[in-house]
């Protein structure tokens, strides 16, 4: 188990390094520079600014300087703000995104699993069709359309919920729904097909032949086995949600990391782009790691394979 964890950690570092390097290269290969949009600027000021941020150095020097600061978890200063660093931005934005993400994830997982199981148990009957129509809508309607739709009805027409910003819990409801719809639909479909497969397994018949209760059979024999493929995609889904959907955060005016990222790209704010990309990757890798560990716990067959290695 420890060896497995160590190995995964090593791979995580390699992955992270690759992401940093690739992002760095791509970002700097786009023409233009961070101060191009600032309007007229005396050449001396421009020169001082580029010098201050080491933008006049050769690329490889910038690269090593950046890696050096990363080693102490310093994502560098923001080129757009004279006082705030990228670390400040993340510290400010991440708790908000995390809150929104966890709420959306819970909603997506709980409803997704329930819809998926109900659909599988009622295959080719109306609950199945209803869940799958909902799932297809969830997958095919982009979140910005859903978000505007929700705002229009729940906030503007009926005045039930606040339209935007982030202050009380009722402010979180609409963004949570907009964000949760896609993963929920995805989980529902995955769970349905997985559950259908499990329902056809021989051990379901064994369970029935033991005279056990239907609910018990569905949970312990059905869901317990069908959930495995869902868990394996949960890491990526969770990272997506927790680090914030850029679109949903922008629409609702939520001060999360998603907004930070979008602003960073607009402003060609190199440290912000790099910082948020790396931060996103770190969260993703961490969550996938957690999911792998969780897999050990829920699928006994993997435990043995891991220990034998």
């Amino acid at each position, binding site marked *: 188990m420890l060896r497995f964890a160590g190995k995964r950690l090593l791979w995580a570092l390699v992955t992270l390094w690759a992401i940093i390097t690739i992002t760095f290269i791509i970002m700097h290969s786009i023409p233009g520079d961070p101060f191009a949009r600032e309007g007229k600027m005396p050449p001396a000021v421009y020169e001082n600014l580029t010098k201050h941020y080491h933008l006049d150095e050769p690329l490889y020097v910038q690269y090593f300087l950046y890696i050096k600061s990363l080693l102490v978890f310093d994502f560098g200063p923001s080129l757009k703000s004279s006082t705030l660093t990228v670390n400040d931005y993340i510290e400010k934005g991440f708790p908000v995104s995390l809150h929104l993400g966890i709420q959306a994830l819970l909603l997506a997982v709980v409803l997704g699993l329930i819809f998926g199981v109900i659909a599988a148990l009622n295959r080719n009957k109306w609950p199945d069709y209803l869940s799958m129509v909902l799932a297809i809508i969830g997958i095919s309607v982009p979140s910005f359309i859903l978000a505007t739709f929700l705002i229009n009805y729940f906030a503007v027409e009926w005045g039930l919920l606040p339209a935007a910003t982030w202050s009380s819990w009722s402010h979180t409801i609409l963004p949570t729904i907009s964000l949760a719809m896609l993963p929920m639909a995805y989980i529902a479909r995955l769970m349905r097909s997985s559950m259908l497969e499990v329902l056809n397994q021989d051990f379901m018949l*064994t*369970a029935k032949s033991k*005279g056990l209760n239907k609910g018990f059979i569905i949970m312990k024999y059905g869901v317990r086995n069908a959930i495995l493929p869902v868990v394996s995609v949960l890491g990526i889904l969770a990272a997506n949600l927790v680090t914030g959907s850029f679109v949903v955060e922008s629409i609702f005016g939520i001060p999360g990391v998603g907004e930070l990222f979008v602003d960073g790209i607009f402003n060609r704010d190199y440290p912000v782009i790099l910082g948020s990309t790396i931060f996103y990757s770190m969260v993703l890798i961490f969550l996938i790691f957690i999911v792998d560990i969780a897999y050990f716990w*829920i699928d*006994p*067959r993997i435990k043995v394979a891991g220990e034998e290695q």
Partner: protein
Amino acid sequence: MDNLLEVKDLEVSFYTHAGEVQAVRGVNFAIKQGEVVAIVGESGCGKSVTAKSIMKLLPSSNSSYKKGSILFKGQEIIQANEREMKKIRGNEIGMIFQDPMTSLNPTSKISDQIAEGLRKHRNMSRKEALNYGIKLLEMVGIPHAAERIHHYPHEFSGGMRQRVMIAIAIACEPELLIADEPTTALDVTIQAQILKLLKQLKDDLNTAIVLITHDLGVVAELCDKVIVMYAGKVVETGNIAEIFRNPRHPYTMGLMRSIPRLDMQRDENLYSIVGTPPDLLNPPKGCAFYSRCKYAMKICKDFSPEMESLEQSQKAACWLYHPLAKSAVKTS
């Protein structure tokens, strides 16, 4: 003595996109306490469907009992509701399935899988069920049972898993055990061990066994009575000596001849019954074996034969044995 299980005129159909598949088309048999009855026949002859219908394990969405009755200890199974069936399943009737590799829940420990039935039907506490489970595993010959019971199915070999399945099936001491091809998925040496185990359990617990198989060797090893099925119908029944010494239905004769013999010449071809069984989507009007039978007569094509009593307990459904048939062919 009264029959433990009585199946009368059972007809079961499946509904598919292609139409109604008449999987079982009138099956009759009875089993007494402690008796071992084999149902033999080739794949698709309805033997597994018959077995599953005894426990009402067929999918309710696309299958139905069309006719007949299944009496278990005088209770009509076909009319029984789910609540009554739950009391019978695992408690009074246990079942062993064909493939031990897929019949156990992979994410649940053996201890749980044995204890479930005991706790439900015998109201045992967690601890009692565990201790009894260990006893059961010892009984079916699993070494280090006290330790092994805490393992998961994938940590057992195929033969060991089938032993676990048997332990689960007999946990509540059912009066009837249905074994649906219990040795088919196992290799030959393990098959022999499992058969020996079943035999021993039958002697120790006086459990009646319905053994579904297409392996006549297994039948000879274990059974008192044989039911030969073909295309959803019973074509011949009798006790084991009668069927093996003197098969009367042409299909049974063919089956017996198909067993490879030790005294055969090496270069001799193995015998097989020519042709394929009929499509049960449109079962033939007359005898289902007509197209493959070398004794086929005109009447066989259009009229289905009834079971005729021959000597002692042997019966066969063949026009050759109709009282009006002049002289029956004795052997093949």
